[in-house]
């Protein structure tokens, strides 16, 4: 299939991109890496009148240390995230989730910002961003604002990015020395997550001191497994204690039923995968 006709601009700065978005009106659409948008355009599930390519704005790409944060440009590719020492050292969970996304070709083109802005509940980067309390830097006509991940994911394919705004940077607190793991369940190598769990824990002398757990595809947005986190704190990092805490993984979820899995099966998966993810993270 060939996409419906659209106009195309490739601005050289964020300010120009924001202007193009404002002038393009309701039918303008941002393209980042295009690995979600192009399939949608090809299937003609969307037909924007204007496509604004962020590929010509170098400052949106790259990873840097900014005090107690790791700041990742929205246009940074999965491939670059996977090969970055700052990410490996301070935000390992992000790399672990990124590694499971699609395949090599898609990871060359796909971007962190594109994935988060697209906000597919089956996407793998929302759960770690939420669990790790990332902050989203959003640029608009009047400047930039910062939105915590907990307020960023609003609904199915819907985020706090407003009309005329662009996600420019994602900032992660450092989790240096934490253990982490992303446990993904899907049917074939490059398939979307039926359910997945992002877990990071800090273990002190065999006891879980802090825990962060996020769930993929257990509702219309990524979901923080707050009940599991609370239940883990102060517990020994043992299989039995972790499995008991993991039983709370479905609290606050609204698992979808679709061709891949029924809701009750997803709930079963969430409990089992949470146990596996936390155990691997604590190991």
């Amino acid at each position, binding site marked *: 299939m060939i*996409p419906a006709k659209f106009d195309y601009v490739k601005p050289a700065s964020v300010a120009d991109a924001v202007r193009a978005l404002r002038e393009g009106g309701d039918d303008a659409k941002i*393209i980042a890496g295009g690995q979600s948008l192009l*399939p949608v355009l090809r299937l003609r599930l969307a037909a924007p009148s204007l496509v604004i390519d962020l590929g010509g704005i170098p400052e949106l790409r790259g990873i840097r240390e900014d005090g107690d944060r790791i700041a990742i440009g929205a246009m940074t590719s999965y491939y670059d995230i996977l090969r970055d020492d700052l990410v490996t050292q301070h935000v390992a969970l992000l790399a672990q989730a990124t590694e499971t996304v699609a*395949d*090599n070709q898609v990871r*060359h083109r796909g971007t962190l910002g594109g994935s988060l802005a697209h906000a597919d509940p089956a996407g793998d980067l929302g759960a770690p961003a939420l669990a790790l309390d990332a902050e989203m830097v959003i640029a608009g006509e009047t400047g930039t604002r910062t939105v915590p991940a907990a307020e960023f994911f609003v609904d199915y394919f819907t985020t706090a990015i407003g009309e005329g705004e662009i996600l420019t940077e994602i900032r992660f607190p450092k989790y240096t020395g934490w253990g982490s793991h992303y446990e993904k369940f899907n049917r074939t190598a*490059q398939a979307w997550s039926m359910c997945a769990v992002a877990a990071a824990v800090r273990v002190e002398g065999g006891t879980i001191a802090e825990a962060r757990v996020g769930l993929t595809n257990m509702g219309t947005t990524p979901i923080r497994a707050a009940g599991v986190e609370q239940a883990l704190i102060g517990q020994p990092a043992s299989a039995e204690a972790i499995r008991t805490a993991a039983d709370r993984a479905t609290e606050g979820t609204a698992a979808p039923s679709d061709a891949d899995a029924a809701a009750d099966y997803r709930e079963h998966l969430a409990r089992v995968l949470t146990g596996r993810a936390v155990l691997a993270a604590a190991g």
Partner: protein
Amino acid sequence: MAQVRVTVDGVNYADDVEPRTLLVHYLRERLGKTGTLVGCDTSNCGACTVHLNGQSVKSCSVLAVQADGGEVLTIEGLARDGKLHPVQEAFNEHHALQCGYCTPGMIMQAVDLLGDNPDPDEREVREGIEGNLCRCTGYQNIVRAVQSAAQKMKPGATADAQTPASVAGGGN
């Protein structure tokens, strides 16, 4: 219309294209590079894999205008001076194809993989080509061919073996 200036298999092109033109259609229909195939048209199969600026991409999921200013390598540009690339030779030697439809994309992804990991074990080869489907299910010989090519491409293995980085225009 938008203008795209791109180097494909070492030749410079400048063309006016509709912005909606997919890179794979530009390569096949405008430039006649029909060695790159359209398979699933849904980003799954990898038959359309080419290198863009030294990295493998699915050319059905890239707009031609996104390649503007860039360098594209297709299966048709892989051989040098009439001599097949070591990965092409290995696919031949190990019968790593049955119907052949996935072969151009499979080879382009294998060359990319070996650029990142010159000595992959079997699991790493399988993960490296996870975005390329062989509907004949002929993966065994494909994996053997990629590992054989890796051995032949090792520095000093043969006098004229090229490294994937030199073929892919600088790698990553």
